[in-house]
């Protein structure tokens, strides 16, 4: 009997701190653990007693890579609790801000975190010596996403302009129009990015994912839509709890999100693309066809191409919003006074998948209970499944190559471990 253990103490090029452990006995994979050792920060605990109006700024600090996602999910959840609906140009501005975050976050992952895996470099800086043009294009494109967030949100990390009900200040038509040339330049770079990503070498792997994303009546989903899956789930946007639950798994001590009754699922670009391809713009859809993406695309390595397609979509959507923009009379709806206790939940599409918030508000609009389910906690179990399959078919690889392959398989899903509002520290093991 032989036993092999693969241990990666520190996953590089993911946001946050994680590690990996795989135990192989004879030729069987006995145990796969994606470990999270991000120290707990207790957001759900200290949100209690804070005003509903503070949630967007506070929850943004869960993740410096996708703060807008936290601002959006918390605003929508609070608005549901308060019984208000934001519409018109303010709704469009929220979509525009989210487009900026998608561009910034996706391009960061494509060029700086993911591409080095395919081209064989430890990082994008060293990759830039041989691929200067690609890295420069990536940085230029990422900058456009950041500039859009700064224009609308005041700064790119933890924007300051978002509030329950809308914004503190709405941009003028002229301010947004002036940004058009930058977006047009970005479109050219984004199309090049699709081709750059599609020309990488992909392992020929297909996984049988249950894809989960939002699905909106006529838009590619960002802020709104039902929660749907490729295996038949369909529930309203605020009813995440109806179909999913968080479990503490004894072997790993980690909180995983699973379908009620068991089973992992996948959120993020592959899932959105699988369930909403008909909502892409014609240009984005044609590019996807030109570079040979499947419908649905089940190869996790090709998520880099899907991210690039979503960047094209986000730029087109930003241009559409800017062209149709009228400055609203008020940048925000005034939230009504809360008469009694109320609960509100909302789910939006963070760059790496659906992000669910639910709050119970009490007297004076103070938060009594908060629940936040981040995309990476939903993907964690599914990533472990990917790893198990990878190791099973790669047993002949030497230690270093197998370790490398496992790290790559994790980075396919752009895990954001800082979003670990309630991941557990896993290095405590009890015999």
């Amino acid at each position, binding site marked *: 009997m032989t036993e092999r253990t693969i241990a990666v103490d520190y*996953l*590089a*090029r*993911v*946001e*946050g*701190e994680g590690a990996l452990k795989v135990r192989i006995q004879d030729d069987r994979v006995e145990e796969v653990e994606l470990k999270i050792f*991000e*120290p*707990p*920060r*207790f957001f*759900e*605990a*200290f949100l209690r007693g804070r*005003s509903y109006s*503070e949630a967007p*700024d*506070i929850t943004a*600090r*869960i*993740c*410096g*890579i996708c*703060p807008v996602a936290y601002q959006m999910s918390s605003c929508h959840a609070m608005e549901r609790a308060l019984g208000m609906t934001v519409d018109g140009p303010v709704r469009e501005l929220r979509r525009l801000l989210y487009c900026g975050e998608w561009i910034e976050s996706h391009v*960061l992952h494509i060029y*700086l*975190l993911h591409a*080095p895996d395919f081209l064989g470099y430890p*990082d*994008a*800086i*060293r990759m*830039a010596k041989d691929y200067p043009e690609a*890295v420069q294009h990536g*940085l*230029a494109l*990422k*900058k456009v996403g950041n500039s859009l967030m700064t224009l609308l949100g*005041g*700064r*790119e*990390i*933890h924007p*300051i302009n978002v*509030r329950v009900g809308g*914004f*503190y*200040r709405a941009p003028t038509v002229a301010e947004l129009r002036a940004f058009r040339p930058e977006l047009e330049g970005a479109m050219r770079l984004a199309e090049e990015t699709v081709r750059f990503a599609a020309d990488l070498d992909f392992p020929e792997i297909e996984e049988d994912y249950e894809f989960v994303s939002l699905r909106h009546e006529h838009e590619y989903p960002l802020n709104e839509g039902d929660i749907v899956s490729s295996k038949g789930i369909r529930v309203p946007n605020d009813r995440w709890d109806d179909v999913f639950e968080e479990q*503490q798994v004894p072997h790993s*001590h980690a*909180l995983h999100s699973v379908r009620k009754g068991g089973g992992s699922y996948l959120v993020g670009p592959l899932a959105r693309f699988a369930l909403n391809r008909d909502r892409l713009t014609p240009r984005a859809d044609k590019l996807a066809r030109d570079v040979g993406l499947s419908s649905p695309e089940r190869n996790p390595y090709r998520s880099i191409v899907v991210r690039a397609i979503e960047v094209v979509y986000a730029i087109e959507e930003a241009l559409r919003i800017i062209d149709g923009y009228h400055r609203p009379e008020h940048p925000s709806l005034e939230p009504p006074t809360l008469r009694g206790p109320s609960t509100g939940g909302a789910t939006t599409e963070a760059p790496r998948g659906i992000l669910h918030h639910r709050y119970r508000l009490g007297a004076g609009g103070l938060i009594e209970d908060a629940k936040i389910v981040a995309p990476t906690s939903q993907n964690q179990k599914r990533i472990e499944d990917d790893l198990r399959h990878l190791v099973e078919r790669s047993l002949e690889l030497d230690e270093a190559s197998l370790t490398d392959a496992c*790290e790559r398989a994790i980075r396919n899903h752009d895990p*954001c471990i*800082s979003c670990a*509002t*309630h991941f*557990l*520290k896993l290095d*405590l093991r009890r015999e």
Partner: protein
Amino acid sequence: MPPAAKPKLGVFKFASCDGCQLSVLDCEDELLAIAGAVDVADFREASKAVLEGPYDLSLVEGSVTTAHDVERIKEIRAQSKALVTIGACATSGGIQALRNFADVEEYRRVVYARPEFIATLATSTAIADHVKVDFELRGCPISKFQLLEAIGAFLGGRAPNLPTESVCIECKRRGNVCVLVAHGTPCLGPVTQAGCGAICPAFNRGCYGCFGPQATPNTSSLIQELKTLGMAPPAVQRLFRTFNANAPAFKAASEAATAEAVAP
């Protein structure tokens, strides 16, 4: 001529959101120039390649919240010629320092079904509470322009040239209308250190203090003003208890905000 050895840069993470180290990668126009001027020796968010210390310059993000991290920051300090903290978590303990005002055992039970598996300290503290820090960059997040100035200064062997005045000065310079005086909007600008560019008042909202207290903040005067505007004492307390809740001047102000309410 053989190339001179480049200074080694380390970027280290403690409890945080990753936003401040992301600011390094957000220097899109300067990133390749920085990479040309230093050897990126340890920056796990960006690279798999890890070079051994010692490091000429270490940037440290995040606060100390575990026993293991108490030891880790000492090791990093021992390996670092200069150590610069980046952001509110590293400089004051961050939003997660709200536990310092609460019962962490209760927090554990609220968030985790199996609290016994959670290793955490009762407090979230600044890096400077544990080791000597050569320079602190404020902000939640930091300003990337301040970051570039600090990196340039340390590599050039000079002190960073960064303001310690209040946000009010930046507001005047930017030509903002004072939201506190003109609109009656609660604003921490008068007691908060400059560096952000007075973004919040420029967007018609009050400053929420993410750069932490300025050198000589008159918080008691501001507390009176906020109460005159009609803010209830608990709301004033919450205003001081966000991303720099554990910074001494804001901590004292948050306590004073409600203490005065019960005074005769």
